[in-house]
């Protein structure tokens, strides 16, 4: 390769490599291409200095511009929070029942409530707020503690049977069987009566007696017609909705030794604005009064 070998036909220098008489031409790169290549090298060096580039054991070189995608995320979150703050301030200043009067604010509250619900409430009430046995369905039209936005707000803020909160909803149904307040056959009679008024099939012979026992023992909290008393947390028994389960057997079990659900008071865990948003959201699920 000490001497340049020029290909006769093309007039181009060869590399000196030869395979079965075929020689490789050493065609120079186009000038423009070469310059772009050099420019890329210069750019790459500059980029390595300016931007995070070299991986180290803990992290990487910072780069003189101090760029970090994490910092961008933090800024973005702060920006989003600033944008939300306008609404949150407004919600703080607005009575919970009046939020729905402002269409834009109501939309924000429902969206915010929806996301807060998914974090805090779905564990008991379900992802669709459909509830489970012992955990009320929030889509339907029966409300143990009342279904207006204000009542829902109070329930969320103070919870139910949460001893840590002074204003919590408290209702305790006596264990009529376990504490021997009623005889076994009396309990069965009441259960039959309750089933009959909620549209189920019951033993007709027991209903009359059951109705009397109901008036004496149960009507104080559940209402004379078993329509429920929200102030006392006595659920309606004359309809198709059961917190635990319908049917004579399940109702008998509940009268014998009642189960009581507990809901924490959320005002200590969440901001007031969040609780308000939750109330607006839950109220919008279709059963709000």
């Amino acid at each position, binding site marked *: 390769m000490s001497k340049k070998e020029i290909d006769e036909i093309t007039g181009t220098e060869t590399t000196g490599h030869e395979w079965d008489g075929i020689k490789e031409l050493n065609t120079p790169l*186009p000038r423009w291409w070469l310059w772009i290549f050099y420019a890329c090298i210069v750019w790459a060096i500059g980029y390595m200095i300016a931007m995070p580039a070299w991986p180290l054991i803990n992290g990487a070189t910072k780069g003189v511009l101090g760029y970090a995608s994490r910092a961008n995320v933090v800024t973005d979150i702060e920006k989003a929070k600033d944008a939300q703050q306008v609404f949150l301030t407004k919600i703080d200043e607005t009575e919970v029942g009046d939020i729905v009067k402002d269409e834009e604010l109501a939309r924000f509250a429902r969206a915010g409530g929806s996301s807060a619900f998914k974090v805090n409430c779905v564990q008991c009430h*379900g992802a669709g707020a459909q509830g489970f046995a012992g955990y009320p369905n929030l*889509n339907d039209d*029966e409300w143990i503690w009342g279904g207006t936005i204000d009542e829902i707000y109070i329930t969320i803020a103070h919870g139910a049977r949460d001893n840590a909160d002074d204003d919590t909803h408290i209702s305790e149904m006596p264990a009529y069987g376990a504490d021997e307040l009623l005889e076994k056959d009396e309990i069965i009679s009441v259960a039959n009566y309750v089933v009959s008024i909620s*549209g189920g099939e019951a033993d007709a012979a027991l209903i009359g007696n059951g109705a009397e026992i109901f008036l004496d023992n149960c009507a104080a909290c559940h209402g004379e017609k078993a329509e429920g008393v929200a102030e006392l947390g006595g659920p309606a028994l004359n*309809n*198709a*909705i059961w917190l635990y389960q319908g049917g004579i057997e399940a109702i008998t079990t509940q009268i014998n030794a009642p189960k009581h659900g507990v809901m924490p008071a959320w005002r200590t865990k969440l901001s007031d604005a969040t609780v308000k948003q939750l109330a607006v959201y839950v109220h*919008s699920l*279709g059963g709000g009064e």
Partner: protein
Amino acid sequence: MSKNKKPAPDTKIEKIEVEPVNKGAKNAPLYVAHKKIFSKMAKGKFRNFKTFMLMFTLSIYFITPWLRWDRGEYAPDQFILLDIANRRFYLAFLEIWPQEFYYVAGLLLMAGVGLFLATSAVGRAWCGYSCPQTVWTDLFMFVDRFVEGDRNARIKLDKAPWSANKLFKRGIKHFIWILISVFTGITFTLYFADAPQLFVDIITLQAPSVAYATIAVLTGTTYAFAGIMREQLCIYMCPWPRIQGAMLDEHSLTVTYNDWRGENRGKNSKKLAAQGKIVGDCIDCDLCVAVCPTGIDIRDGMQLECITCGLCIDACNGVMDKIGKERGLISYTTFNYYNENMDIATSGAYTHDGTPTHEAIEAIDISKVRDSKTGKLKPEFKHTNWRELFRVRTILYLTVWALIGIAMLLSLTFRSPLDVNVLRDRNPRFVMLSDGSVRNGYDVKILNMTPIYRNVELSVEGLPDAKMILGGSSEEATDKLALELEPDRVLPIRLYIKVDPEDVKPGRTDFILNVNNIANDEAASAKAIFEAPEK
């Protein structure tokens, strides 16, 4: 051999010093410097057609945004408007919403198949006459000729040292180029907003920055593509010559040099004839090369660079007229016709490979080509028959093209400007209410695709005794719901459907949600499912 009839013919024909950019005989390297092309103005029917297409297509482009179409007070009155901000496409009486984008897909399909059709029938007619690159390049070439003169004057100016005159002419030329480019860019943006308003905004520097950016890009590309790059774009950048080359067949019309009557060519035919050589019709005046906008020599055969604009046909026909020969030495013809004629001329010695080889030309028997008594071409030679356009392949393309068109037309004609979409709640699938009735929730979207207010009524079909109520409403649930739709808007509603306990069917029930315009018989419907407990 028959040249003695003409009255001093060759003196009238301009002799041109020109060399094709890709001269076949030369073994040119792949990487070559660009050769400047100074194309000469051609005169003839193809030039006229090209000029007509130039004016026709440019008129469409520049005038369309200014056409108006009255759509009432709630919609823009521009004939064609691509409203990206509001996601609407207006075309005359049509208003296309984003979910109807398949119409655009259909149009693109038609454009694609249409291109197949055009290519298989008339070759690269798109390249030659209606491609924007061709049209704008042609327009810029008119500017060249207007400012600097025709070919010779331009070559002279190009070679001349810089002077006040050259600077002036070049300045004027580039100024007009840029002016056209800017107007091309401005016109493009006018398709996307109210044209008169945007135009005023652009002039008064009030328009959004995206408009100026678009204009800048379009100005730059127009100036670079049509002014500077020209045929290089077709040859090096555009994939279409390669695709089209693959779609041509032996029945496609291409611009062809009929060497069976042209060869042997010679600038001094009398001398050649005296030497006893066979002399063809081509007098080697190189006019066909001079007028070519891509600077090639069509006599080297069909090439990738040829955009089949037919200007060389015009040039050659003019020369044939002057020397008293039949027109069509260069002509639009198919490979099949060329082969047949070559067969006749060479008494079957031609190899059919399509390239004008020395051997094939040697085999041409001039007595087969021309009648020595009359001096006319022999009648056996075939002229391209236009019926060649109609063959299985083109008819198939035409059928597909027409079917897509008819399908789109039908669907456009019968499309309802009222539509409804229903999305059922999945969680909870249903809600049992205290009175034992079952309620399902739906997110319903009602689309009013007309620029007028409409009053519609919602009703449920296939679900006995179903009652409807809007989410958040405190009114009683009813059989039917009346709603007002804003013009040109989607109305999203939260709809609850409730069925009384005695009417509830266990499990899933299919039903139809109907939306009826109260004022007329316009209607839309959507299938949906109502779910209840299994027992």
